[in-house]
């Protein structure tokens, strides 16, 4: 029975995504086009990357409260240093990935609660971002802008990018030995250590991957918005956590799914759009976001019911 409930967890974001997309198409048939899909989804690409970053942290039973601030920092660096002096910008971004890995090391060695450390780091990243860009500004490097606005034939960039990202992350998480060890650490750290693996390395790698995807998220964001500000991505902390959970992940136990996380991120992004097509009173537009989130997750109940009926039959 369990494997099929796993399947349900995986199916949930796709069902939700499909339902929302259906709703959007029904409200606004114009969205059912190449340009329409691109407009609907292109801002979901950075969210998907941030969600994957968060997923690596959740895979080792930690939680990153600094993800939004970090993506904002990466965006500020991209819009300034990477644009003006690419080598320096690249170096800073690499260093920030290294900082992430170092955080993993410190958290592991000192057995610190990751939530507190990342809470502290959220101030650090935000402070750095404010120092780089005291007022919004900067500009996206040309190549990045080109990359994020490219119009591949047949499939909108946003969807193609999401697919590619999901696939790449899936290979790392589910197919590679590293991914297995990272999830193993989330599932049962002691037994991984007893089998002779270095849990330290595994955790550092998970954090480094999170840092990498966080940087990519910041870069993708700047590519879309053409410039940055320090507060640009603060929402991503909660969005990324919600995306991982929506995508079938769990807070403890190393149960995560890369494909699910990307689908979860797309769902969350689409939920916002769906609302603006509904033309609610501004008073309730915020509340409706909550209602959609609840509805999407309540789908799980329906799926469970179907599953149970099938199991009984």
């Amino acid at each position, binding site marked *: 029975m369990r494997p099929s409930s796993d399947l349900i967890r995986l199916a949930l974001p796709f069902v939700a995504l499909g339902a929302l997309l259906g709703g959007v198409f029904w409200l606004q048939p114009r969205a059912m086009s190449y340009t329409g899909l691109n407009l609907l989804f292109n801002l979901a690409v950075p969210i998907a990357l941030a969600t994957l970053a968060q997923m690596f942290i959740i895979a080792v039973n930690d939680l990153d409260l600094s993800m939004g601030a970090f993506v904002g920092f990466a965006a500020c660096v991209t819009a300034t240093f990477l644009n003006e002096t690419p080598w320096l910008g690249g170096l800073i971004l690499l260093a920030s990935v290294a900082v992430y890995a170092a955080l993993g090391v410190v958290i592991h060695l000192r057995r610190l609660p990751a939530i507190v450390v990342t809470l502290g780091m959220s101030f650090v990243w935000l402070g750095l971002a404010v120092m780089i860009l005291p007022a919004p500004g900067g500009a996206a490097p040309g190549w990045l802008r080109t990359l994020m606005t490219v119009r591949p034939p047949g499939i909108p960039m946003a969807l193609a990018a999401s697919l590619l990202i999901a696939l790449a992350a899936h290979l790392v998480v589910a197919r590679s030995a590293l991914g297995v060890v990272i999830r193993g650490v989330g599932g049962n750290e002691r037994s991984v250590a007893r089998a002779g693996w270095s849990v330290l390395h595994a955790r550092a790698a998970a954090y480094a991957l999170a840092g990498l995807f966080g940087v990519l998220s910041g870069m993708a964001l700047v590519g879309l918005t053409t410039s940055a500000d320090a507060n640009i991505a603060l929402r991503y902390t*909660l969005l990324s956590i919600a995306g991982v959970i929506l995508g079938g992940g769990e807070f403890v136990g190393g149960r995560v799914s890369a494909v699910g996380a990307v689908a979860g991120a797309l769902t969350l992004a689409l939920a916002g759009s769906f609302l603006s097509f509904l033309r609610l009173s501004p008073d309730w537009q915020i509340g409706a976001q909550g209602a959609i989130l609840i509805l999407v997750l309540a789908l799980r109940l329906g799926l469970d019911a179907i599953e149970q009926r099938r199991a009984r039959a």
Partner: protein
Amino acid sequence: MTVLRKPWAWAWIATIVVYAITIAATAGASAAGLAQAAFTFAAFGVIVGLGQMFVITLGPGNVDLSIPATMTLAGTLSLKLMNGADAMVLPGLTLALAIGTGVGLLNYGLIKVLRIPPIIATLALSFIVQSAAIWTNRGLRIKPPESLAAFSTGTLLGIPNLAIIAGLLTVVAWVLLERSIWGRRVTAIGQSLPAARRAGVAVDGVRLSAYVLCAMLAGLCGFLLACFSGGAALNMGAEYLLISIAVVVIGGSSVAGGNSNVPGIWGAALFLFLVVSMLNTYGFGAGPRMILTGIIIIAVILAASLRGRGTEGG
């Protein structure tokens, strides 16, 4: 030094150090004023922190993100109900607590009935509650009754009234957590929900009551904050999301649940206020100030880990 092994010790040490550094800037002239301000503002953090602590104690993934919205709705609606009339203070307070109760019930309803993970359930509900707060009076600030405004900004024997209220609540929370059966049950659930269930704990009842208690404290905090700052504002709870979580975890409670402590909440709430005051006092700009805040938080947690944290026996 056994006190150093207490999980809450480091929040207090950090508070004292930061306090000393801040008053050093004025050669001690500001000592009393700063302490009074710190206790006043820490009180709000403590009140929401106590509630958040019980929820976090319930185990991994349990956290209440609806605190800010609950504060806002409770503050807005109760001030609207009182409409500045001293006679309406009690109904106003009752309404604030009732709103908290309602939000808590809904939170757990979503968690239990729809099986939504708490972090998302409370986040989603908070959007709805926030909308309700906007809808009720579109952000118009209504003044609190004179008597309440005077009470919430007043002091007793030099101690801010709010700090006294928060202090009393702290004592109650300590008794609940450390001495009551309910606290035992919350802590048991936080270590292992299935084990607690098989040991006969009525897990739904206990979890529900923790969420309701948390939301009620948020409602109370919103009520007091609105009275204190001269009216409810739509964004008045925003800061308290991070603060409520931070005071719990910096105060030495385990984020994985099942192991919490009350004294650390005061230490951490004072610390969070004083650290900003210290950096403001020394004239740091926004960027460096935030960076230093973050580094200091990490340093505190690191120092605590280097000295080794004792486990709470029992």
